[in-house]
């Protein structure tokens, strides 16, 4: 039933997955802020989301796990750690808001479908 797999819903679900994955990486970076030699990790959130937007349902790879990479351009401290507390805090705040928005939008999409299905009533 492609009703529940509309492109909008698929996109929102993908966005939620990516936001959750990003937040997991942020938590990991924060947890390792004092680990010698640890380098900050992240995903290319916009890139992954764009791929999902363009691919629609045709590209199976667009639904796979996002690519994790090290973040360039961060300053390394003497112990080899390059985690920036400020960067991670900002990302964390952003992730929270983002997740909330995506979930709310998805909720309203589902509500709309619900209405359409059961609001049919008579002829």
């Amino acid at each position, binding site marked *: *039933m492609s*009703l*529940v*797999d509309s492109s909008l819903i698929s996109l929102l*679900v993908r966005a*939620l*997955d990516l936001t*959750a994955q990003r937040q997991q990486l942020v938590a990991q970076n924060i947890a390792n802020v004092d680990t010698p030699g640890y380098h900050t990790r992240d995903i290319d959130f916009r890139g992954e989301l764009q791929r999902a937007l363009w691919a629609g349902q045709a590209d199976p790879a667009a639904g796979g796990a996002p690519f994790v990479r090290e973040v360039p351009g961060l300053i390394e401290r003497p112990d080899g750690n390059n985690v920036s507390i400020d960067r991670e805090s900002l990302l964390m705040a952003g992730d929270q808001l983002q997740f909330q928005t995506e*979930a709310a939008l*998805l909720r309203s999409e*589902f509500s709309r*479908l*619900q209405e359409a*299905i*059961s609001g*049919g009533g008579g002829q």
Partner: protein
Amino acid sequence: MNVNLANPGIRILPADLPEAGAPGAGGEEGFGESLKQAVAAVDNLSLDARYRVSSLIQGSGADVHDAMIAVEKADLSFQLMLQVRNKVVQAYQQIASMQF
């Protein structure tokens, strides 16, 4: 019955009758076929939802939001199927109650 009531002299052979599952023009999928596919799809969604929820409860790494979404999708598609079924039953009853 193979007898054409209007013209008793003409016999309608079984081969002339459209197949029970294909009321439309020849070559199209019948309604019965779409209904079977719809039921299979709803079944898949509900299996997926159940798998995700149990995986969530057991702590084997399923994300909460994925489980919630799977449940909602299964629920919506089931409701849709229910509504379609109701409409079909309604239509049947209307036809069945017609007096010739």
